[in-house]
């Protein structure tokens, strides 16, 4: 519990990062928007991972947010980027509140597989739903911002970049506050020994469910950004490979640092873009080698480069409290 600067001071670099888009080459804007949007989902996975549970099915909430926004946009003509982001987050957050308490009873691989199963059920339902465009999905209009219409593609890209970076940055600040809060501390305790948490009078399931709902909210907002960037939505949003990509970023980042999520997301997008450009037929190989290298040399993620030195973990003991014969009770 060492004294650190208050996360709210990070608003300054967040604003700076959003304005940086003015100086960036056009081709990097959409790359950075995708990276920021993906980082938002991965941030949710990291928040949830602090309780010891990994969701392999965040595509469910990513798609639920996207489809929710797309349906509202097409029904009401709403095009405002901030409103769409909020609708996506709220829609998925509510879904997370519904599913979270049910799924919090499970842990480890069962938790992960259940989330994956739910996302694939949703994928299947979307695929069969002709009202939602089936496998083709459907299109939405160009986003606006507070009544401003962006006819110039460069301006439109910058607007979306700025909103995505600002939203993801603010979500990161909220996550940093959460991490150092009492709730954040208990989340780590749940990760290590959830039965002891219960013996202390706290509900481990409630802690997991709240973290789950937060992760769902972030994924829903990210789904809205993906929708605005592509102006199209289809069931692929809920497919397991989409969820896998978010887990990929979270694994790269580790669970100790918020900033690591952005670094990991950007690194992934850069590796993917450049390997796709220079090695078009083997870019997945490059991506796999990159992940292997991170797992091999930074098993606790990129964040351990700066956040892990203070807390070199006795990971095996943490993961298996009964390893020395002393499981509760």
């Amino acid at each position, binding site marked *: 519990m060492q004294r650190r600067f208050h996360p709210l001071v990070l608003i300054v670099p967040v604003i700076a990062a959003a304005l940086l888009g003015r100086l960036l080459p056009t081709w990097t804007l959409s790359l950075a928007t995708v990276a920021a949007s993906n980082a938002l989902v991965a941030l949710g996975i990291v928040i949830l991972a602090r309780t010891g549970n990994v969701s392999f099915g965040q595509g469910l909430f990513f798609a639920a947010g996207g489809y929710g926004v797309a349906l509202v946009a097409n029904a009401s003509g709403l095009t405002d980027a901030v409103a769409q982001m909020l609708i996506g987050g709220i829609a998925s957050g509510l879904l997370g509140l519904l599913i979270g308490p049910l799924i919090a009873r499970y842990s480890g691989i069962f938790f992960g597989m259940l989330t994956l199963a739910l996302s694939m059920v949703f994928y299947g339902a979307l695929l069969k739903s002709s009202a939602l465009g089936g496998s083709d999905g459907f299109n939405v209009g160009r986003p606006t911002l507070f009544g401003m219409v962006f006819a110039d593609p460069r301006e439109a890209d910058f607007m979306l970049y700025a909103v995505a970076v600002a939203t993801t940055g603010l979500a990161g600040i909220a996550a940093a506050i959460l991490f150092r809060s009492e709730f954040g501390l208990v989340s780590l*305790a749940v990760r*290590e020994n959830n039965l002891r948490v219960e013996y*202390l009078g706290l509900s481990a399931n409630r802690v997991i469910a709240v973290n789950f709902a937060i992760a769902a909210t972030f994924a829903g907002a990210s789904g809205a950004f993906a929708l605005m960037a592509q102006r199209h939505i289809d069931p692929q949003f809920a497919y397991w490979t989409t969820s896998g990509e978010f887990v990929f970023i979270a694994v790269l980042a580790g669970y100790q640092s918020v900033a690591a999520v952005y670094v990991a997301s950007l690194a992934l997008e850069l590796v993917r873009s450049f390997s796709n450009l220079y090695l078009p037929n083997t870019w997945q190989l490059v991506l796999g080698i990159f992940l292997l290298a991170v797992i091999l040399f930074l098993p606790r993620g990129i964040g351990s480069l700066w956040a892990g030195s203070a807390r070199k973990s006795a990971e095996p003991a943490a993961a298996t409290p009964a390893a020395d014969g002393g499981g509760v009770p």
Partner: protein
Amino acid sequence: MTAVLSARKLNKRFGAVVAADDLSLDIAAGQKVSLIGANGAGKTTFVNLATGYLKPDSGSIALDGTDIGRRSPRSVARLGISRSFQIPQLFVDLTAVENLAVAIAGARSEALSLRAPAEAGGRREQAVEFLDRFGLAGQADRPIFELAGGVRKLVDIAMALARRPKLLLLDEPTSGVSAEEKFATMDRVIHAVAPDAATIVFVEHDMEIVSRYADRVVAFYSGRIIADGAPGSVLGDPDVRRYVTGGLR
């Protein structure tokens, strides 16, 4: 004296093994009760039944008149029973003061704060105060995985004490502590818990500890109580000598 904990005709079986056999026991407020018995006699089963980890097959167990036989460990903890463990159950990646902060968070009635830092609002001071009672203030910011077994044991007990329970159950508080340090450790434990937990039940295999610190001893054998009374009379009981201490000394 009023019974804080009252068990009536508790039964618990694990297949062919009878862990609690028509067990009836009253623990009065203010007592320091030691549970003794050979391995498998039913001591830890009784602790697990009293803390909600196990549910009795039949019979009842009540805390201050409230039935706790079907409640969860969380619910029992909230009613006022805390426990420590034979092998400390700590959050090993967190520091000692953070472990205590989690325990203190559990002791409060209000919801966990999503915003306020874990050490804010006097919580750190409170956590350090609990550690200080056990002489561990200097270890406050060290992660648990760096601490020795005896220190972990004390942190585990400090966490159980954070709720200021009506009844504190200690499962072998000196196991893993060297022979030279066991009395010092137990002195520290008794001194530290005195202001907050007047009623203590401790499972113990060391008869020197039992005779020095308990004012009542309950001897278990095959899920039954074979002797119950003052340390001198219980430890001198022929059945206790035959089934319990004979195998322990």
